[in-house]
């Protein structure tokens, strides 16, 4: 069995998780604790990847990240290379696709923080940034961990968006889900079986961990 797609999947999931958690934490803090006009429009936009078929999202990303798209052109003028069919390209696509899965558990963790704790921090002279770093984050660690695990698992399972934006370039964009699809198409069932089996226990164990970290799930058990 070729282990490179598995390695690429794990690398993609790890990079996307780190970037998404770093981006989703301040975004969620902003959505929970600040008032602004049009917030519901922003939230709906963030959640769009949940309801859109991955191929539709992948198609739009393909257009936007392509040589004639805004993001693709900006990337090209700064780095002198293309985003499509590269590892960086599928990282960007994963971030867009998994953003709601990072924001939702984090928002729910931030909403569980007693608002009076935040008020107390304000009274004690903390700036909004200091409140985020010294009060909100340390008191939401379980929610952040749950968010990280969900993003990691969701990225490992991505198929449609990756295929549209990255294709199937060995060592670059051919992740495990695409390798399994290709193995089945080529009737190499043994490879498909082995790679699928490798993903199942990892995903199952991580989901168990999410359940342990999420109070709502624990209460319902």
């Amino acid at each position, binding site marked *: 069995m070729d282990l490179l797609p598995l390695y690429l999947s794990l690398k993609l999931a790890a990079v996307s998780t780190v970037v998404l958690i770093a981006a989703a934490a301040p975004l969620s803090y902003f959505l929970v604790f600040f008032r602004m006009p049009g917030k519901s429009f922003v939230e709906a936009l963030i959640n769009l990847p949940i309801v859109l078929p991955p191929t539709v999202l992948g198609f739009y990303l393909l257009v936007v990240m392509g040589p004639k798209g805004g993001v693709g052109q900006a990337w090209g003028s700064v780095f002198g290379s293309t985003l499509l069919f590269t590892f960086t390209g599928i990282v960007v696509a994963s971030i867009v696709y998994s953003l709601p899965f990072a924001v939702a558990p984090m928002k729910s963790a931030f909403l569980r923080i007693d608002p009076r704790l935040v008020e*107390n921090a*304000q*009274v*004690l*002279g*903390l700036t909004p940034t200091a409140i985020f770093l010294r009060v909100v984050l*340390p*008191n939401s660690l379980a929610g952040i961990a749950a968010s990280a695990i969900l993003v990691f698992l969701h990225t490992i399972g991505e198929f449609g968006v990756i295929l549209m934006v990255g294709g199937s370039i060995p060592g670059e964009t051919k992740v495990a889900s695409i390798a399994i699809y290709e193995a089945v198409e080529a009737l190499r069932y043994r490879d498909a079986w082995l790679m699928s089996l490798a993903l199942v226990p990892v995903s199952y164990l991580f989901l168990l961990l999410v359940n342990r970290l999420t109070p709502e799930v624990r209460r319902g058990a």
Partner: protein
Amino acid sequence: MGLEARLKKRLKHFDLDVSLACEAGRLLAIVGPSGAGKTTIIRLIAGLEKPDEGEVTLRGEVWTDTAARVDLPTRKRGIGYVFQEFTLFPNLSVYKNVTFAARDRERAEDLLKMFDIWSLRDSRPHLISGGERQRCAICQALARDPGVLLMDEPFSALDALSRRKLRDLVKSLKGELHIPVIHVTHDIREALYLADDIMPVARGRVENKWILQFMIARKERERDLCRSPRPGLEDDEDEIELSIKMKEYMR
């Protein structure tokens, strides 16, 4: 000059419209029934809520002036605020809670000793009693050397013994603070015991009639209770002091 405030705000069931002043070294008790607007008053002073109209100044420094569109953020007001319920940071020890925003670490340590919670300095808030937590909250508020201390029913969640101990501690401390202290309570006995000045509030207005009605109702209730065992009432010495203060106030 101490703290001065004139505040108007439309609330759900009535309009709040009050003016108050509190000199440094004095304790003003805002007393009234639940839902009278007491907490809103100190939240407006703290900047946690915005008035529709009014001004708040401390020693001449303008914190709020709706006409001039001045609204100093809460974090810049330099206030100490003790919340009704426990608002200690659960992820920090008692020591770290008190030194969290302290300007002077030594002062914070002195407060921990003064409030008799030095031995609990390494404990997390959920492992100590309600009285100890509220002592810690007062230390936290005082440790940043505030320009005014606002206390929102700080003893209401405590048992009788803890309430009494903490009340005595606050009373002995208030003269040494040299800052205005505003204490919100629904307990007239507590107000009379602690305060230099009392501001009775009912439905968002200063209402002296209310305090008289309250006293009459309370006397009637005590008379009824005297016929039967007196659960919940504290010792006679306290009662005597309360009666003397009531008479003084009514005069």
